[in-house]
């Protein structure tokens, strides 16, 4: 037993449901008690989904507990088959069904006799894998199923597409900025002269999965979901894959070069160097940003990073390598992938933290006192408590992390978005700090409501000049504090001396 208040990755069935409901016309039936269909609420709220989430429950209640699910699961599957005519129904076990140890495989077999839809049982163990691992497995399972099916029916297409093409693997519902990333990657592929063969699972139809082998290679942008599928396709069809996350200027270039290498190995003569140079120097603003004075001011500032493997690793590299920020520690909650994470970030941070305990992370932040945090919603709240700004870079996320505006993290536009995120986090911190220096946030006695320059107090010329030198965004506050100080002491004219005395008094 473990005392837990908060978890970073959800239970296994969430991963399976994310995959199933990412496909078009695939329905998931959970074998679960009443109330476990909270996934539908999350999808409907966070993604602001217009359609009904294709997930229903075959309810496990007291009767099921006494006598087993029996025909109930089978009936629910065949009923859904009639009602919605899905292409595939995925029976999804939950923690409850994994202890009941009912023969769900058998129900699936029975149900598939009577349904037009394909039926499968998601092969995930609730107590062994989490949401992310389950998603990875379920995607592979579905792909395998349809490749085998096509092979059996002899309609597996032979050969490759005429032009170089790619499958983008791992875009899912409820994934962090996945939809925007997907658009950005498609655009990137277009500019590289590569056709997008299929994007899976988001928006894909299962009957098109047999066309996966027609692509020249696979691109797996996220570490968490898609690698198992890419591995399977590599073993089965000798399809090469690229698993470099194109996040940040350097990594995007590295990803593009790896793609170029693959295409060249396949006899296509491509050279992406000019494209990379042009994008880096003139299209993306991130490289220029890193040379600008703004970014110079960030040099050596302390930051900490925490999130899933993909985003935490990429962010650490961007901060350290591209912006000169001092990453004190970087961490991930993907414990099962610890080795990879350590390899990726070890040269870019002082220390590495791998934990699923949010308390450890909170303590580590408090101890480090960084100027900015890049983490999940949990770290954002730690930041709030400690007065440290936080940029959210990974799930768990809230509705505000599903923006409707275009906000990719990947590709060249992604580098711009990340630069904004980083810069805004730090300037906020700086602004806060300046406010602190010049007298804090709360002026208990409000003297002027507005920040207009006119007042009844007299300022001599020198003091007025000095006031003008105070950064604009705190000037009003400094002026009010100084005037309040003078008024309290019945000083009629504000001189330099009064000005400094006021600053000291407020600071003390």
């Amino acid at each position, binding site marked *: 037993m473990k005392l*837990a208040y908060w978890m970073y990755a959800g*239970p296994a069935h969430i991963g399976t449901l994310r995959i199933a409901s990412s496909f078009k016309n695939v329905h998931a039936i959970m074998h679960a008690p*009443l109330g*476990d269909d909270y996934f539908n*609420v999350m999808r409907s709220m966070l993604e602001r989904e*217009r*359609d009904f989430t294709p997930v229903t429950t075959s309810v496990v209640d007291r009767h099921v507990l006494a006598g087993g699910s029996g025909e109930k699961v089978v009936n629910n599957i065949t009923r859904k088959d009639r009602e919605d005519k899905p292409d595939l129904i995925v029976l999804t076990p939950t*923690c409850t069904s994994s202890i009941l140890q009912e023969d769900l495989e058998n129900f699936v077999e029975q149900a598939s006799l009577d349904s037009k839809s394909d039926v499968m049982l998601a092969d995930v163990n*609730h107590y062994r894998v989490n949401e992310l691992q389950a998603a990875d497995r379920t995607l592979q399972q579905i792909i395998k199923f349809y490749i085998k099916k096509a092979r059996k029916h002899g309609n597996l297409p032979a050969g490759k597409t005429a032009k170089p093409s790619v499958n983008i693997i791992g875009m899912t519902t409820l994934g962090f900025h996945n939809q925007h990333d997907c658009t950005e990657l498609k655009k990137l592929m277009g500019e590289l002269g590569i056709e997008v063969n299929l994007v899976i699972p988001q928006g894909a139809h299962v009957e098109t999965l047999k066309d996966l082998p027609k692509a020249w290679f696979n691109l797996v942008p996220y570490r968490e979901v898609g690698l198992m599928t890419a591995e399977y396709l590599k073993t089965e069809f000798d399809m090469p894959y690229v698993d470099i996350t194109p996040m940040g200027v350097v990594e995007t270039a590295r990803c593009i070069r790896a793609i170029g290498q693959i295409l060249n190995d396949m006899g296509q003569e491509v050279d992406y160097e000019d494209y990379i140079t042009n994008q880096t120097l003139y299209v993306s603003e991130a490289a220029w940003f890193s040379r600008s004075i703004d970014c110079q001011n960030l040099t050596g500032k302390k930051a900490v990073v925490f999130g899933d493997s993909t985003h935490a690793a990429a962010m650490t590299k961007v901060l350290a390598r591209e912006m000169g920020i001092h990453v004190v520690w970087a961490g991930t909650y993907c414990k099962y992938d610890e080795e990879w994470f350590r390899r990726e970030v070890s040269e870019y941070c002082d220390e590495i933290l791998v934990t699923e305990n949010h308390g450890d992370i909170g303590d580590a932040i408090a101890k480090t006192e960084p100027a900015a945090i890049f983490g999940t919603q949990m770290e954002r709240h730690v930041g709030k408590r400690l007065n440290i700004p936080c940029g959210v870079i990974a799930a768990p996320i*809230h509705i505000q992390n599903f923006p409707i505006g275009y906000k990719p993290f990947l590709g060249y536009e992604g580098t711009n978005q990340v630069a904004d995120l980083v810069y805004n986090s730090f300037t906020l911190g700086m602004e806060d700090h300046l406010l602190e220096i010049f007298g804090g946030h709360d002026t208990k006695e409000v003297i002027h409501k507005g920040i207009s320059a006119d007042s009844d107090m007299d300022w001599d010329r020198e003091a007025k000049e000095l006031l003008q030198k105070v950064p604009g965004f705190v000037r009003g506050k400094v002026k009010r504090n100084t005037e309040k100080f003078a008024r309290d002491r019945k000083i009629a004219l504000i001189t330099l001396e009064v000005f400094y005395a006021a600053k000291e008094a407020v600071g003390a």
Partner: protein
Amino acid sequence: MATVTPEPQALSFECETGNYHTFCPISCVAWLYQKIEDSFFLVIGTKTCGYFLQNAMGVMIFAEPRYAMAELEEGDISAKLNDYEELKRLCLQIKRDRNPSVIVWIGTCTTEIIKMDLEGLSPRLEEEIGIPIVVARANGLDYAFTQGEDTVLAAMAARCPNEAPEEAEKKERNAIASLLNFGKKKEEVEAEESAYADHPPLVMFGSLPDPVVTNLSLELKKQGIKVSGWLPAKRYTELPVIKEGYYTCGVNPFLSRTATTLMRRRKTKLIGAPFPIGPDGTRAWIEKICSVMGVEPKGLAEREAQIWESLEDYLQLVRGKSVFLMGDNLLEVSLARFLVRCGMIVNEIGIPYMDKRYQAAELKFLEKTCHEMGAPVPTIVEKPDNYNQIERIKEIQPDLVITGMAHANPLEARGISTKWSVEFTFAQIHGFSNARDILELVTRPLRRNNSLNGLGWENLVREGAKHNI
């Protein structure tokens, strides 16, 4: 016009498949830990339970809540680990970090299936660590959403003291009385006591926010009815005295088990009344209590009329509009009855579970209200089937659907206005003065519709999309 008035219809009840969306009953910890200030709720379950709580409670999770998961691991399931030792370790940690006056164990589906004997383990552990442990089996195998509170309060009912404590302790315990007396002198309090009619002790049950408790208690005080205690009280240490022969009355429709426990185990007499939701419900609730206590109610008709008058602006928006309650929190019958009185037409009342005995007075009141308003008597659908309900909604095209968040956005995208049902459980909806809050919720989508009228984008789903209704 028909010349023959047809016989008024009676309520009809149906029962569907139970394939509907609702919250897991463990969600009751969200409001109970806030209500019972010295409690700690330990939910003994899996990651699934934890994930639900974490997401359903939104920002509350960041406020160092007084609840946690005892997350079961593979070793617990396969009984490699000793339940007692594991729970002891966790409870000692809670005692050390939070020092609560009670730890409430919430049993879940998993503890049911692996038959973890929480009721057997708790007395031993209670003795060993010196903190009361209350066990409530609020699991999704047996219950829906608000019924979670019912299981907790039923367990708490067993802990209410039999005898009034010694004087010193009494002051602290009798919180409601001192709240109502506002620290007055003893003579004044005695004078006040005489303002109450001579009636047997009355204890209310149901968790409500403190302002609502005060409001309802004062409402009864006006009639000379004294509320001796409230289950639950602000603190566990202030649980009310309950003796054989006391009267009890519920404030919420989902408290069947608590009512049963109070009657059978604590030998109290239950006052079966409609629930104080809406001015009509509040009046009927007070009247019923008065009649049992042998008090002649006064000024209630005027009070009710006055409230209705103040609601007129909202009533104009809802009159003649139809409403479909999909059913997920057991407040449905009371809400529907209030909305019929407001002039709405109720198409269907979905409800997770219907206790016809506990809700008898409310059901009768609903029927009567329909007849008085000349409204059709709605069908009550127990254990509804959401898929079938969506089909019926497609058919009827109601003006408003009260439903869970899983269906709200998809329905809105299809041009059907919705109100999120869970808000009714978290808003203050009891008593005369909160009637406006109910209508504030109910009219919100209607007011939004008026504001966005004429823009031409009500239906935002592509032709041919699934369930395109």
